[in-house]
């Protein structure tokens, strides 16, 4: 068949004109979608919040937070709506939650779009560098000077949840800028079975391992240890960093930005050896992907002699509906004990918890409300109420108050742990650094890599990330 003659075909000039119009349309769409590029360049650092709170709106307003889905998020929403509404009846608090694994992405993809559906981002302390460098959150330095009693806090807590560049462990640099205020303090607690290993918790790490070993041998079906090993979030990384700290290791030399040779020094190697060769054999089979919920489930089902978990996530262990250890809270507490982490060469414990940070892309009215909320939240009496509602405050007076200490059996553990805390890096490259550590520690724990190789790979790859700022192409591989 010959080609049929096409009816109504465009003349060549007409066709060219339409093609040109289509191309112009595409270019116009591109230019519109991309903006003029000035906006990005001009917002290279965090914008400043006013020192005094601007006039607040009288119209109904919803103040939105973003956090991950766990009990403290629900507690915060209930607490804030009950208490803050007394001061600001026109304000409703909404805590939006996402699964823990999506937490970073959910916040930073919105930051990337320069439009957020939240006014207050609850950032992990290590996210601060990335958010500050990209200009995603407000600089609160002047606001804090004017509105917050900084002397009421342990300086390191204030620094950990707000300061950038990062403070030296245990200290706060008073000349550095603050970008956030504490919302929820946290650290690891050691959860132990009093009915299996006795009332007195082990005092050293080595002692803890031998107690767990004995308990496992004497109680078939119960594993000696339960801890975070998953390769998502910061699970396996925090576990290694904890053991690293206890055995005298360092994560990096912050001033020289050096990881290779520091993390994998003799102390670091010993910590990895202890974790993989002494602790891992005492865990349940298939526990290589366990995180917060799985560890809690093992404890609640009576399947672990000693476990490690974040204090803020431990409340559910006392719920008889979720436990096989007793039918009342008292019965459960007869069997479960909570203690600070054992020490070894040092007594360091991991710093957990999160701070509140004001989104730079929120409306002026919502930013003003957010600042007002933060000022209200950091008051002594509100911090005590927050403690009574199940939160972990950061003010020293609240930490030592009966409201806090009597609210949960693990709260004393937190108060005792505050002077012992150490954080990870809060540099902009945090997300990649923690992923490298998570995947390699997880590989070592699950037999996919030898412990020494895993640690050397972590050090080498993390150093590569820190050194790659001037590289042309391939960033992120």
């Amino acid at each position, binding site marked *: 068949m010959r080609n*049929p003659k096409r009816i109504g075909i*465009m003349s060549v000039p007409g066709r060219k004109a339409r093609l040109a119009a289509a191309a112009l349309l595409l270019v116009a769409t591109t230019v519109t979608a991309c903006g003029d590029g000035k906006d990005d360049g001009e917002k290279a650092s965090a914008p400043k919040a006013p020192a005094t709170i601007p006039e607040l709106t009288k119209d109904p307003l919803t103040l939105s937070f973003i956090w991950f889905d766990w009990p403290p998020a629900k507690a915060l929403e209930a607490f804030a709506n009950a208490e803050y509404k007394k001061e600001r009846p026109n304000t409703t608090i909404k805590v939006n939650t996402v699964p823990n694994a999506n937490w970073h992405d959910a916040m930073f993809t919105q930051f990337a779009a320069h439009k957020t559906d939240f006014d207050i981002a609850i950032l992990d302390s290590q996210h601060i560098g990335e958010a500050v460098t990209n200009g995603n959150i407000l600089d609160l330095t002047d606001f804090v000077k004017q509105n917050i009693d900084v002397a009421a806090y342990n300086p390191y807590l204030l620094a950990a949840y707000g300061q950038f560049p990062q403070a030296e462990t245990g200290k706060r640099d008073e000349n550095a800028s603050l970008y956030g205020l504490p919302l929820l303090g946290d650290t690891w607690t050691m959860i132990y079975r009093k009915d299996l290993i006795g009332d007195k918790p082990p005092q050293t790490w080595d002692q803890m391992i031998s107690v767990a070993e004995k308990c496992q041998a004497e109680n078939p079906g119960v594993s000696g240890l339960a801890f975070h090993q998953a390769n998502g979030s910061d699970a396996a990384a925090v576990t290694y960093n904890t053991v690293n700290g206890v055995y005298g290791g360092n994560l990096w030399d912050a001033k020289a930005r050096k990881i290779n040779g520091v993390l994998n020094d003799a102390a670091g190697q010993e910590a990895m050896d202890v974790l993989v060769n002494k602790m891992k054999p005492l865990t349940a089979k298939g526990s290589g*992907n366990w995180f917060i919920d799985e560890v809690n489930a*093992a404890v609640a089902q009576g399947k672990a002699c000693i476990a490690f978990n974040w204090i803020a996530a431990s409340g559910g262990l006392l719920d008889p509906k979720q436990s096989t250890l007793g039918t009342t809270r008292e019965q459960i507490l007869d069997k479960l004990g909570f203690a600070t982490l054992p020490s070894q060469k040092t007594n360091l414990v991991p710093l957990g918890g999160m701070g509140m940070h004001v989104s730079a892309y929120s409306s002026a009215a919502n930013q003003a409300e957010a600042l007002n909320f933060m000022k209200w939240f950091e008051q002594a009496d509100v911090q005590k109420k927050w403690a009574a509602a199940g939160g972990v405050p950061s003010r020293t007076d609240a930490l030592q108050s009966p409201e806090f200490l009597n609210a949960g059996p693990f709260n004393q553990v937190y108060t005792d742990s505050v002077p012992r805390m150490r954080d990870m890096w809060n540099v902009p490259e945090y997300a990649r650094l923690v992923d490298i550590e998570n995947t390699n520690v997880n590989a070592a724990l699950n037999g*996919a890599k030898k412990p020494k190789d895993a640690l050397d790979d972590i050090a080498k790859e993390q150093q590569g990330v820190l050194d790659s700022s001037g590289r042309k192409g391939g960033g992120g591989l």
Partner: protein
Amino acid sequence: MSDPVPLTTDNPGQVASVPPPAPGRSRRLTDRGLAVGFISPALLLLLAMSVFPLLWALYLSFTDYSATRGGPANFIGFGNYTAILTSAQVHQRALTTLIYVIGAVGLQTVLGFGIAYLISRRTHGRGVLTTLFLVPMMLSPVVVGLFWRFMLDAQFGVINSMLGSLGLGQVEWLTRQRTALISLVVVDTWQWTPFIMLIALAGLTAVPKYLYEAASIDRASEWFRFRTITLPLVWPLLLIAVMFRAIEAFRLFDLVYILTNGGPGVSTETLSFHVYKVAFLGFNTGTASAYGILMVLVVIVLTQLYLRYLNKLKED
């Protein structure tokens, strides 16, 4: 009697005349104008949702742009492409993806065709059986991943419980290097075998009955009939199903994210999962764009080769 009216023509363009516009239609509105008017919304949507992002990603792939760091997108030529193509990390993920694609699609093809062959031989309950087999395909991969994650749990999963009742030991399905990848293949196979089965069933149903009748008259064996009639006639359709599945499997992300999160270590990280990490953990948008473009190119080239083979098969 008048000459018969030709039913077809070799040159319809010359014979057919342009129908006059419907009464009431503007004289300026030609058929072409009407056609453009109708298809332009769809075209604009396609331009905005597919063509523009693709071109934009192509542009970004030659820059060091980061979506969160801001600042200008500096042109770095083929820097991202050479870094990706020479990266040992990417090679490792490519190998994992290749093993996964071959394992999953191979298993699905054998099982899917086998099931379709058995169903095609039944005369009763064929519809019900086919519908039942299609159920997994209708579920969201995230839902499938979640319930398989529970089923494969080493401590309280139903699979290990069944193995235990048979006197077999516990298997760490999701936390050991080999079993984790096998688990992914098994779960994907469970969900997508019905797709191959469906297409194979369509092919099997279309095989003319008279061929089998002729073979029966010639007293051909069952195996001979299968080898010389069934398989050659169904083969081209089956290959198309394999192609669709291979493309899908090549860009696997959801099951990995839910079941293993790429672990243990990075041993089940596929290329798509790695792109996700590059794009969203470090927000290296330029690199991630180049990575995505390379993946699209690989799929296009392989599909083209595959289609050529398919056409050759058809011509033969």
